[in-house]
């Protein structure tokens, strides 16, 4: 459907993992939004968004993640980001959202953290 982005969803116990690859812009972010919000509705205790395949993200992508974060927190869950490349990291720094999100280097760490916290 949308050749700019590829989204895979996995479940590990009560953790949902949304793996994103490609370019997240005004064209593709609605697809990311749909995936994140449909997972948020299932009220997982933790939603991990793995951005390691994302080479590009604009403010519509960031807005989508903020919306997801707020939805999860409303339901007492948490949203964790991992695998941010240089470009994505810069966008978070510029918008000062690097202090608002829980950001971990890799998916392994995002999952390990969960079991440690459990």
């Amino acid at each position, binding site marked *: 459907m949308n050749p700019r982005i590829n989204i895979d969803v996995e479940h590990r116990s009560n953790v949902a993992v949304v793996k994103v690859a490609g370019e997240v812009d005004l064209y593709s972010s609605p697809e990311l939004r749909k995936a994140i919000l449909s997972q948020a509705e299932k009220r997982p205790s933790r939603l991990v968004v793995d951005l390691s395949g994302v080479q590009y993200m604009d*403010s519509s992508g960031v*807005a989508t993640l903020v919306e997801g974060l*707020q939805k999860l927190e409303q339901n007492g869950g948490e949203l964790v980001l991992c695998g941010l490349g*240089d470009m994505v990291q810069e966008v978070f720094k510029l918008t000062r959202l690097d202090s608002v999100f829980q950001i971990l280097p890799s998916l392994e760490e995002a999952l390990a953290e969960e079991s440690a916290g459990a």
Partner: protein
Amino acid sequence: MTRSDHIDPNSVELLIPSDPRFLAVVRAVLRETAEMQGWDARELRAVTLAVDEACSNIIRHSYKGRADMPIWVKIRTLQGEIRVELRDLGEKIDPAKLRPRDLDDVRPGGLGIHLIRSLMDEVTYDLSEPEGNRLILVRKKSRQHEPED
């Protein structure tokens, strides 16, 4: 298409429909022209994001989401600076609304103007066009201040 004899040998012009699908085309043209002038990946990322945000704003605000309106993108790449001019025929910008939101007020959206201003050295909304908007964005290579760090 306009006619004129010889043209600026460092400029390209692009006309795209106001459809988000075409944002990737603008990014690709920026990538190729910047590479041509030896701009590094970080500078290119900055300019690309700023231009993309500005195009997204034209689509969402000037054209209210209509996908079949024209956006002209003129890119002039020199060794020392890149200059991008965006032109649309949509609703005129209300300068009072052109404000970045308070970054502490975390909410989805409201980040485009902030990103554009942080990433570019000159951001000029030319409000003198009889119809539509003209935005001129300039970034100089290895500029002194680096607000993104």
